[in-house]
């Protein structure tokens, strides 16, 4: 019987299959960070349990680490304690840790692929909803809560009910791929299917446009699957995937043999059945800007802030939510998106902080200055991204333009470290969530691509990047 890629990965990881209820799935890679793991390790201690597979478990600190000079002590004592607790837990339980001074430190979803911990056909979990990022490599990767983190540490397995399948096809050639980015594709998808459109499903992104994307761009798309409610999103691996991972630090020694197997097996069979299907035509989309307080509240850069009744299309609950969102965001319906001025710009996060994101943004910035009204920040996703960017001289381009050039971490995507918005500040952000208070209590977030963020930093307001020279 023909199967989807997800079903193949699922079938090959079932340890216990019950007639009714969830299956016990084997976990190939478990990524751990400081915020969602302390209570899990405590649980192990209380029950005198050990970590079953320390060799399949990797830890880093990313959520609350400062992005300023790392030779200085951490000012926030509570953050510092959480970081120390992770160090102690990794030491006590024998887990490899990329600590704050490691050359491999970075956002967990950036370092997994760049170290070759992420591999096609594997199951990957982490106590973080953006684990879906790793699906770009054709792995089944999903976020779990802390109880499940403890469960995976103890058993290397997780109980899961089999999700349904959702095919999202992206077709059509983008007129200018520098202006219409992977971020615009995923925001367009979420805008159309809604923040719960993927609930209970695993998305497989398919179609010509997806094949044309680089690995970094595929990661941006899979990353935001959770913003559409899906536990995971994946893309069938291809030659780009295999080349990206070749030679990375943690890939197995029999890599070529694995590639041969992956090439033959890791794709949905012709005629495989998907429970749901949706198609986006990428040649029809514009650069996207979110105006509200969830990622589906997004519109074209050429558009206007919508009226709640226009946005909600008759759904009373959505209309109330849109009204509240506009109040929170301090926006009036009918305002041109390009008339919205900004106080802050953030280029970073597990969605858009990889080398390619920084290169794209820097091309526009080079030789220019940011608006005097804007404070702008670049936070590379990892120490490796930072080093590579510096080798290319990107740090200088950003700094000369007036950007702050920071150390790696999650930073202002969720503001657990000192990088936060003040109440009322408005930010163009390359991150993934525009929830109320996400980047700081009272802060107002507009989600955009790196090139849109860079253009906004220069102009002090949103700009249609298609009108700029991006080559």
């Amino acid at each position, binding site marked *: 019987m023909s199967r989807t890629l997800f079903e193949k990965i699922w079938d090959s990881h079932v340890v216990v299959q019950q007639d009714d209820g969830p299956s*016990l799935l084997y976990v190939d890679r478990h990524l751990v960070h400081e915020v969602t793991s302390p209570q899990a390790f405590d649980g192990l201690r209380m029950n005198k349990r050990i970590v079953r597979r320390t060799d399949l478990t990797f830890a880093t600190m990313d959520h609350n680490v400062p992005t300023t000079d790392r030779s200085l002590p951490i000012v926030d004592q509570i953050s510092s304690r959480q970081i120390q607790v992770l160090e102690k837990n990794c030491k006590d339980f024998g887990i490899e840790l990329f600590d704050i001074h490691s050359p491999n430190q970075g956002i967990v979803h950036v370092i997994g692929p760049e170290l070759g911990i992420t591999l096609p056909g594997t199951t990957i979990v982490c106590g973080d909803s953006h684990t879906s990022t790793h699906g770009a490599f054709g792995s089944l990767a999903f976020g779990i809560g802390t109880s499940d983190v403890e469960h995976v540490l103890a058993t290397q397995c997780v109980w899961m009910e089999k999700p349904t399948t959702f095919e999202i096809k992206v077709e059509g050639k983008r007129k200018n791929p520098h202006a219409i980015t992977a971020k615009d594709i995923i925001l367009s998808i979420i805008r159309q299917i809604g923040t719960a459109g993927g609930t209970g499903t695993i998305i497989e992104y398919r179609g010509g446009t997806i094949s044309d994307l680089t690995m970094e761009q595929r990661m941006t798309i899979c990353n935001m699957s959770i913003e559409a409610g899906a536990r995971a999103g994946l893309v069938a691996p291809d030659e780009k995937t295999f080349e990206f991972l070749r030679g990375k630090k943690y890939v197995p020694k029999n890599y070529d043999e694995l590639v041969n197997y992956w090439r033959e097996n890791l794709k949905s069979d012709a005629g495989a059945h998907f429970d749901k299907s949706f198609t986006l035509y990428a040649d029809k989309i514009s650069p996207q800007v979110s105006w509200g307080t969830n990622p589906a509240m997004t519109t074209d850069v050429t558009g206007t802030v919508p009226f709640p009744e226009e946005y909600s299309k008759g759904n009373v609950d959505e209309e109330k939510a849109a009204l509240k969102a506009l109040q929170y965001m301090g926006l009036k319906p009918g305002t041109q998106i390009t008339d919205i001025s900004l106080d802050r710009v953030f280029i970073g996060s597990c969605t858009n902080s990889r080398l390619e994101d920084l290169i794209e943004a820097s091309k526009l910035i080079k030789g220019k200055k940011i608006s005097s009204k804007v404070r702008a920040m670049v936070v590379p996703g990892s120490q490796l991204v930072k080093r590579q960017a510096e080798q290319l001289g990107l740090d200088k381009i950003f700094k000369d333009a007036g950007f702050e050039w920071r150390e790696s971490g999650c930073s202002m995507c*969720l503001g657990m470290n000192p990088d936060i918005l003040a109440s009322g500040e408005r930010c163009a952000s390359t991150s993934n969530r525009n929830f109320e208070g996400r980047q700081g209590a009272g802060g107002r977030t507009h989600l955009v691509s790196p090139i849109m963020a860079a253009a906004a930093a220069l102009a002090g307001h949103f700009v249609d990047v298609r009108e700029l020279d991006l080559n």
Partner: protein
Amino acid sequence: MEPFKKIKSIVTPLDKVNVDTDQIIPKQFLKLVQKTGFGQYLFYDWRFENGDKPREDFVLNNPKYCDSKILLTRDNFGCGSSREHAAWALLDYGFKVVIAPSFADIFYNNCFKNGILPIRLDSQSVEKLFNNSSEIEADLQNQTIAVGDIIIPFEIESHRKKTLLEGLDDIAVTLQYEDKITMYEKSKSKL
């Protein structure tokens, strides 16, 4: 985990769709390294003005609901971040049951790990509950909600029901399959 008993209480109505876990427990409180003490921070930015003054217009600050154990809300409750702190905060505050037309997957799963019963009800029944101000009773064993004389049945996955009713420790259950896990590991080539 404590076995789940019947819960009788008035209902706290939180009339919002897409309530995300950043609202349930804002990020500044995720730095604690234990599971307790999160209740005081539940819905923090909605509950308090300038960090300490209770906002009169927020439902949790209405004294009428101070002993409520049941939260009633709208579609897609618990979306966004996987933070289990959201479930810990609800439980620590006193909520044992959350009723909504739909929940986000990770949050739904996290509830069961902590002895909270999330109940999915059709929108019409949810609407009825929003219009009711008397006590209701959530009975997991019989899968019903009693509103006076009216009985509303609900569906729940049988294994999840068992977990809550018996207060099962997931890890202990899984470790009974130790031989199968070991066999699986032996059968797989090393990745």
